[in-house]
């Protein structure tokens, strides 16, 4: 019987080509989209899970919060790791600290060639105990990392530096002065990690670079990872750490009030960690849920298409079903046959979808900035598994139509009274409304997501970001006399102003410890702040609303003043006028407020305004080491390319041809929203696919329903109906369906967007326009589709229509 069913199924599918083609295309698009979503999600959740011990690896974070202002830092202090190992030797197998001096890139010199490397980290020599599973091509994990000045590089970097020889044993220069010996080469690690590196330098080398104090409990620049024992309970350990390091010491050190340590599982970092000072910007698990839902929606739309088209086209097969029942088929036989057809369709659709995914994967990887290889999954999931998956898909999609069709009664068929009532099937109309409403909702969400991304990139963030160039200056050549280089830059035609800072505006900042006095009581504050020079306000175009900007001279007063923002003034309970002259004490002495500036966005727009301080660095001289960047404002009328070229020349002269690292602030800001941009594009593509699938389904359905009305149209034409009357008759029903679908879609889209936009402190308002655009688009789509099918019939000779019937 199966052989006959298979034969019959194949031939039926070939006979009803339009139905088969539309169904196949929709299933392929739906399944391929879902596969891409699955690949993306699988890749995202696999981050850091390739480490054998990943379940036992935790990062320790430190939080402090004083009246709503503070820090939730992914990085901690230098002494913390060793102290935890000492205090909790039964729970902590090993500790590793990771440090990059809070600088993104360092210069490495190989012979005469100079490179900027932004994946260089200093790590403790137990690194390969905590993070095992790196494959050594040269050297080994037990001995390669024992000595100071030793470094381990990846295979790709080894090829870059030493294309024609072995890298092991070779010497490279850190910042043109500190020799590092390559003691190991490892295979390039998987990209699926929150911590992407290509050079690891032994931690003890730090002493040769910075003024390292192993007992500095204030500065928190390093990331600390713990390898815990298998039976260690992290919650309990966290409490013990809090007790030992904070609670028992609070009385002696008031700054420990409101201070907490938190253990974070390694596997949670990539998707759930959005702390201050992350190694890299992490993803968000919420976006994965949204993508999964989108993927399911597209699959659902394709499935609904399948059901709707199968039922609609069943009227062409009523005779076949009736005859079979007359000659002996029972209901289960009919069900079985239609399920066979839908399983065949879904097997073919799945096989073709796999090929489509394989073909389009490079483009998807480019869009999603991933390195997904489909072949990786074949190793874990045998390809033969697709057969049961396809069968299951076919059964799920085909069950409803199969049972629907099996209920045809032979007597009704033979009396020719039966027809799948094309114009009275409420069930199918509900499917169409549901499909169109899903598409409409996705479309509205895509429009608003694009608008939000555009808003993020273009909204006024409180300073002028255009033609503002940042160059990385953290090197001895510049920092030995930064003002000299600053003056060189200022001497270039087309440069308006130059300033120095330790963090880039709009992107990041530090947190400084201040103390104030109120009624003889000392109050601790931890305010977000950046270290700047006197030209910062002018260069950025900030607005001073009370008091004055920094003085332009080098007086003591100039170096001991700070500028604060409106939000800080509000936080302290002052008026702007009252703020002027108030002071805070810090490690650098007493710092007086000389001006209040208008709020600007110091971080990406996820964060609301918060209290903020501009802390000048002119004197004392030891603060110069904090300077990492020059910000250069280029004149509006200057030729940018010429100016950049002159800056490069000055740089080469000053640094002896060190590679220049520069970026326009506007670009750097845009990069903060790369993931939103990327997701917006992915949502856009998925919504387009959903719309195409729904449109194809609508096309198939419209074709069929219109064909069913051929006789009716012929009669109406004979009775005097015009072309317009006919078109209106045929499209009216679909237009009503598309209007009803918008009724469902609008509230769903609205509530989803409200939830989505909540993650941004600054976002667009949800206006009516996208909803109206979606409404017009769905109506236009249905009109175009039905017009496409109706025109022929409307122009048809009515006699032919009746003869056809």
């Amino acid at each position, binding site marked *: *019987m199966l052989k*006959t069913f298979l*034969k*019959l199924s194949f*031939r*039926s599918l070939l*006979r009803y080509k339009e139905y088969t083609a539309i169904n196949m295309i929709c299933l392929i698009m739906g399944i391929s989209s879902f596969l891409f979503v699955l690949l993306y999600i699988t890749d995202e959740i696999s981050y850091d899970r390739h480490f054998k011990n990943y379940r036992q690896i935790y990062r320790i974070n430190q939080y402090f919060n004083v009246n709503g202002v503070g820090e939730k830092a992914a990085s901690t202090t230098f002494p913390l790791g060793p102290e935890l190992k000492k205090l909790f030797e039964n729970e902590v197998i090993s500790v590793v600290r990771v440090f990059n001096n809070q600088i993104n890139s360092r210069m490495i010199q190989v012979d005469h060639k100079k490179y900027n490397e932004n994946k260089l980290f200093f790590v403790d020599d137990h690194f390969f105990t905590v993070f095992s599973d790196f494959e050594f091509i040269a050297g080994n994990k037990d001995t390669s990392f024992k000595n100071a000045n030793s470094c381990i590089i990846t295979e790709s970097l080894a090829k870059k530096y030493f294309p024609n020889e072995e890298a092991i044993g070779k010497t490279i220069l850190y910042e043109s002065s500190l020799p590092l010996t390559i003691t190991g080469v490892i295979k390039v690690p998987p990209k699926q990690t929150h911590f992407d590196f290509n050079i690891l330098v032994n931690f003890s080398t730090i002493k040769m670079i910075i003024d390292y104090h192993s007992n500095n409990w204030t500065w928190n620049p390093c990331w600390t990872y713990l390898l815990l024992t298998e039976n260690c309970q992290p919650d309990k350990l966290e409490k013990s750490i809090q007790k030992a390091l904070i609670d028992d010491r609070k009385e002696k050190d008031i700054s420990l009030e409101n201070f907490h340590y938190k253990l974070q599982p390694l596997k949670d970092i990539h998707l759930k960690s959005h702390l201050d000072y992350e190694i890299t910007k992490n993803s968000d698990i919420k976006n994965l849920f949204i993508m999964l839902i989108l993927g399911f929606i597209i699959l659902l739309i394709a499935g609904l298409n399948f059901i709707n088209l199968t039922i609609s086209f069943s009227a062409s097969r009523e*005779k*076949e079903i*009736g*005859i*079979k*029942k*007359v*000659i*002996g*088929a*029972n209901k289960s*036989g009919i069900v079985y046959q239609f399920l066979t057809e839908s399983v065949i369709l879904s097997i073919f659709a799945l096989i073709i979808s796999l090929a489509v995914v394989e073909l389009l994967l490079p483009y998807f990887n480019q869009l999603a900035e991933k390195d997904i290889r489909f072949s990786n999954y074949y190793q874990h999931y045998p390809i033969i598994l697709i057969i049961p998956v396809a069968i299951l898909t076919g059964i799920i999609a085909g069950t409803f139509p199969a049972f629907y069709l099996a209920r045809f009664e*032979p*007597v009704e068929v*033979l*009396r020719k009274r039966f027809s799948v009532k094309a114009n009275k099937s409420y069930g199918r109309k509900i499917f169409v409304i549901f499909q169109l409403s899903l598409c409409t909702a996705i479309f509205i969400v895509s429009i608003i997501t694009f608008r939000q991304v555009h808003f993020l990139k273009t909204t006024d963030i409180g300073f002028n970001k255009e033609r503002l160039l940042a160059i990385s200056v953290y090197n001895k050549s510049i920092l030995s006399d930064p003002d000299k280089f600053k003056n060189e830059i200022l001497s270039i035609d087309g440069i308006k102003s130059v300033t120095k800072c330790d963090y880039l505006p709009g992107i990041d900042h530090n947190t400084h410890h201040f103390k104030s006095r109120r009624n003889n009581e000392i109050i601790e504050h931890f305010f977000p702040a950046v270290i700047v020079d006197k030209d910062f306000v002018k260069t950025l175009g900030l607005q001073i609303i009370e008091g004055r900007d920094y003085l332009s001279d080098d007086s003591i007063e100039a170096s001991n003043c700070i500028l604060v923002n409106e939000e800080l003034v509000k936080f302290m309970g002052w008026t702007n006028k009252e703020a002027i002259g108030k002071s805070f004490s810090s490690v650098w002495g007493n710092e007086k407020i000389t001006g209040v500036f208008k709020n600007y966005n110091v971080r990406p727009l996820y964060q609301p305004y918060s209290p903020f301080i501009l802390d000048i660095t002119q004197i004392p001289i030891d603060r110069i080491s904090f300077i990492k960047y020059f910000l250069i404002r280029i004149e509006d009328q200057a030729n940018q390319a010429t100016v950049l070229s002159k800056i490069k020349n000055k740089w080469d002269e000053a640094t002896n041809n060190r590679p220049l690292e520069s970026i326009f602030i506007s670009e750097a800001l845009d990069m903060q929203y790369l993931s939103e941009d990327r997701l917006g594009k992915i949502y856009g593509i998925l919504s387009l696919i959903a719309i195409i699938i729904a449109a194809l389904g609508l096309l198939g359905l419209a074709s069929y329903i219109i064909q069913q009305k051929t006789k009716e149209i012929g009669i109406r034409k004979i009775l005097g109906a015009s072309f317009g009357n006919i078109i209106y008759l045929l499209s009216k029903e679909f237009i009503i369906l598309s209007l009803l679908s918008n009724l469902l879609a609008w509230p769903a889209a609205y509530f989803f967007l409200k939830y989505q936009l909540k993650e941004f402190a600054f976002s667009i308002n949800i206006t009516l326009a996208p909803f109206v655009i979606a409404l017009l688009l769905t109506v236009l789509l249905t009109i175009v589709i039905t017009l496409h099918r109706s025109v022929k019939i409307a122009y048809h000779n009515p006699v032919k229509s009746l003869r056809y019937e």
Partner: protein
Amino acid sequence: MLIETINLTKKYIVNEFEITALNNINLSIKTGDFVSIIGPSGCGKSSLLNILGMIDRTSSGNYIFDDIETTSLNEKQRANIRKMNMGFVFQSFNLIDELSVYENIELPLIYQKFKEKQREERVFQIMEKTQLLSKKDFFPQQLSGGQQQRVAIARAIISDPKLILADEPTGNLDSFHAKEVMELLSRLNENGATIVLVTHASHIADFAHRIYNLFDGKIISEKIK
């Protein structure tokens, strides 16, 4: 007695109007009979045939088939009796376009779960009987009307049914092919098949041994040849 109907009545509701298609029909048909039911369009012939074929149900009265009272049977039981005992021939042939001649004829045996070898044997036998061997792999759309009807007849008799029901079997055929089909049915009857045939053409009805005249749902006359 193979078929007996006692006061068989069939009524339809069409747009709130009740139509009596069959009114107290009393029929007796023996095994081996060749019976025609003749009457004008709308007299209830097809309704009667559908009830005799257990495709439709009575509104009242009794229908006894092969000593089984069928009125109280459920759909599954009726379908089983139909499958095992009856073959149908329709005016518009009602072949399945996606199946070849061989596959169309074979189909009832598949539903009765015959094994492949048994099916092959019987199908070839029947195709020989109905002179269809040379058309084995043809599809219905490649055959003439007469050939298609022969395929339909072959399908109707493949499982050796007790009863063959033919609803206007020559309605879509020219006179040559109509005669061909009727001669085939006569031969089958001579070999023992019980045939009930419905037609509006008296020259076709004349092939039968007994003719019932149906008018407005009632048997108005019975002619025995």
